[in-house]
């Protein structure tokens, strides 16, 4: 046991005990849990059973952790194809919560939690906060969006279970955020890193300080060390990266401890593998590849070898914090064309669906992502075709509005639509380069 569980900057909490398990004990725990989750998936989820049966695999095939590599992968399309509840392993009477995130066709993907799952989720969030040096006595401003998005409620439950004071302010309304932050003596904040940079800019304009703010827990979109340096030098806080995805549980899959040399994965609940995205072979620790996660304890919706499309590597070296949990390097890029804007997952194919709905045929288009004053902006440039060209300004403005509304309808976020002349957008030989990410990450 650690002697300093409640030392605010020690990063320990009673719930953090599994963070420090000797590797051998951890691996035994993982193997036991892996066998039961594979059993549950095989018994209760037709898709998993069918895929395992086809390969003559089953729960009995798992004799050691490396045997997991024989099992088939699960991809985002599987969630879409079984929409809404096809991958649930428990009857709805056992499900206490549903969340949803954007999918590739306008239909969201739905994820479920039993009471026990919610508790596990809270516990990994408690451990995340603790690893950031947040404890009882801290006042946490939770500026992640509350709702179907897992960020808000995930952080909320964790903050309460930690014993901290949580302010469920949700996203948006920058003036109020800054007022609450200063007036309530907030010591920790959770939001997307780009939104926090926006808060910094606005605070500067309004000549407001950050008061007692000490720690920031930032996630739900990729960010960089230069953004961290900017945040820390501007505000004097310590900025932590948190990792998670709805398909696995939400935020709380991994966290940077105070040393911030990669994100510790809560391996007692989430089993990480790195694969070559082309050959799908498992790569050894240290190699860069796609992160694949298997849930070890989820009941309502177990995930077997879920391909996250996030590119990273696993660092098995011991961390000065003493956690035995392996770390992943910060996520810098993805193996597909999905991008994240304001916490929303966007596939170019969704934008295509929206453009098609208005124009009937797909025009040439390009998505340009920029970051201004810390806020991410998405612009869709659409080439004007003779079919949609109107001789009147009003007609073109109507077209522009229709396209904007159609995209907003599919993505749930407002974007800027710009009409551009034909043949002005770059054509490529092979796969069209649809996204220009000019955000400095």
């Amino acid at each position, binding site marked *: 046991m650690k002697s300093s569980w409640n030392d605010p900057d020690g990063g320990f909490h009673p719930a953090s005990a599994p963070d420090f398990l000797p590797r051998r004990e951890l691996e035994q725990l993982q193997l036991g849990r892996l066998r039961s989750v594979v059993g549950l998936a095989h018994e209760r989820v037709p898709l998993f059973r069918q895929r395992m049966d086809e390969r003559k695999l089953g729960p009995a095939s798992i004799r050691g952790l490396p045997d997991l590599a024989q099992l088939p992968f699960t991809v985002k399309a599987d969630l879409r194809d079984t929409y809404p509840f096809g991958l649930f392993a428990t009857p709805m009477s056992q499900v206490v919560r549903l969340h949803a995130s954007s999918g590739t066709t306008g239909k969201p993907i739905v994820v479920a939690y039993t009471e026990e799952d919610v508790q596990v989720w809270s516990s990994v969030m408690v451990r995340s906060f603790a690893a950031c040096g947040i404890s009882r006595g801290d006042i946490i401003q939770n500026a992640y969006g509350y709702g179907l998005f897992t960020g808000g409620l995930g952080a909320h439950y964790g903050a309460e279970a930690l014993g901290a004071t949580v302010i469920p302010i949700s996203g948006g309304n920058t003036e109020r955020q800054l007022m609450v932050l200063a007036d309530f003596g907030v010591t920790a904040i959770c939001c997307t890193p780009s939104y926090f940079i926006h808060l910094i800019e606005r605070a500067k304009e309004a000549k407001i300080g950050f008061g007692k703010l000490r720690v920031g827990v930032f996630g739900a979109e990729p960010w960089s060390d230069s953004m961290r340096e900017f945040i820390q030098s501007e505000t004097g806080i310590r900025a932590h990266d948190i990792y998670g995805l709805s398909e696995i549980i939400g935020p709380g899959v991994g966290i940077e401890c105070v040393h911030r040399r990669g994100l510790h994965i809560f391996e007692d609940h989430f089993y990480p593998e790195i694969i070559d995205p082309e050959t799908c072979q498992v790569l050894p620790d240290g190699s860069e590849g796609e992160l694949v996660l298997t849930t070890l304890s989820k009941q309502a919706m177990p995930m077997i070898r879920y391909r996250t499309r996030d590119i990273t590597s696993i660092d098995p070296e011991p961390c000065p914090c003493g956690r035995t949990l392996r770390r992943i390097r910060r996520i810098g890029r993805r193996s597909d064309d999905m991008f994240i804007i304001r916490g929303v997952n966007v596939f170019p194919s969704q934008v295509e669906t929206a453009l098609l709905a208005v124009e009937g045929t797909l025009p040439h288009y390009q998505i340009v992502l920029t970051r201004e004053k810390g806020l991410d902006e998405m612009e869709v440039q659409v080439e*004007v075709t*003779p079919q949609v060209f109107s001789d009147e300004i009003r007609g073109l403005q109507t077209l522009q509005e229709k396209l904007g509304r159609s995209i907003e309808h599919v993505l749930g976020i407002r974007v800027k639509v710009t009409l551009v002349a034909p043949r002005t957008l770059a054509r490529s030989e092979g796969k069209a380069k649809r996204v220009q990410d000019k955000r400095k990450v």
Partner: protein
Amino acid sequence: MKIRQLSLFLENRPGQLRVPCKILGDAGIDVLTMSLADTQQFGILRLVVKDSEAAKKALEAQGVVVNLTELLAVDVPDRPGGLASVLEGFEKAGLSVEYMYPFARGPRATLLFRVEDPERAEKALSQHGVQLVPAAELLARTAAR
């Protein structure tokens, strides 16, 4: 009777207006009059040229988006209230004028009108005693100079 007009889509940034002008120049097409409508993001260039078919072909070959529309040409009496009397003709028929611009060449004050229903507008104006200038005459006037 009606005048053929070319409408072109332009982005609102430097150099965009020169592109179609150069294409028409290279094709030897004489521009008779033009008007530019713009917003912060884009503009529509409206042109009346001698050979609209050839102009359309030349522009489209270079990837410019072109629309052909029809305008009504009216000689507006060059005296106070002259335009008002012409507009009365549209108003009586319940027709709205989308836009209008002057025909820059010729001895008279000639205006080009774009309306939602050119057929109906033509009848309404003649009933109102307003004479339309046929396309051939408009062209002839430019040649005479």
